[in-house]
């Protein structure tokens, strides 16, 4: 069977159970699904976060995520994957991002999910602006996200 790849960038929330069901529907060759969801925290260090607003570069985000989905499919024996990244205003407790990877065995699904998330954190064209009591500010990139993404390019 062909791999089932879904990539969505949307303002709306997603339903994790429904997405897993869609990824596995009608298939008997899937032995493992790994699910990662990124959720908006209500604090950063000692500060309180009222909301995040996510800006993105639509054409590039779609092209880049598709390219990395293909890369994941070629690196690991996946039967399918789903990436959903939300944009717009998101309040603490709400979902931001979902990565699902499906495979016959768990190891490929774990590795591919981590690869896709490391890439999304470091190189996908999305930017978070944080709202707090002090006003709004752009979130600084974290060096450890770059390091996490870079380890996948080592042989």
């Amino acid at each position: 069977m062909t791999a089932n790849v879904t990539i969505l960038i949307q303002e709306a929330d997603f339903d994790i159970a429904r997405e897993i069901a869609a990824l596995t529907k009608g298939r008997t060759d899937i032995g493992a699904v790994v699910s990662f969801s990124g959720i908006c925290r209500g604090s950063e260090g000692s500060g309180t976060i009222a909301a995040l607003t996510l800006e993105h570069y639509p054409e590039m985000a779609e092209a880049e995520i598709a390219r990395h989905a293909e890369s994941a499919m070629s690196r690991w024996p996946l039967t399918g994957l789903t990436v959903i990244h939300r944009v717009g205003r998101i309040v603490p407790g709400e979902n931001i991002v979902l990565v699902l990877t499906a495979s016959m065995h768990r190891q490929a699904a774990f590795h591919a999910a981590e690869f896709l998330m490391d890439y999304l954190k470091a190189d996908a064209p999305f930017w978070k602006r944080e709202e707090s009591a002090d006003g709004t500010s752009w979130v600084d990139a974290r060096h450890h996200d770059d390091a996490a993404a870079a380890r996948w390019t080592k042989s």
Partner: protein
Amino acid sequence: MKVKYFAWVRERVGKAEETVEPPASVRTVDDLIAWLAKRGDAYAHAFETPRVIRAAIDHAHVKSDTMIAGAREIAFFPPMTGG
């Protein structure tokens, strides 16, 4: 060529996109950043620290020494914070 700006680069420049026609002496992404920075105070502020600015040509990440000849769309933005 079309130039797009995102996040705080967009806010500092004061616009999301524009069409520019740099002279032939502007050959690389670095050259374009230096040329844009001279277009006024808003641009100077946006591009005051060129090493933190990331660039993409036609929707793909590029290094700052990449040649811009043939580019249809060049985007400038801060380090990404998605996921």
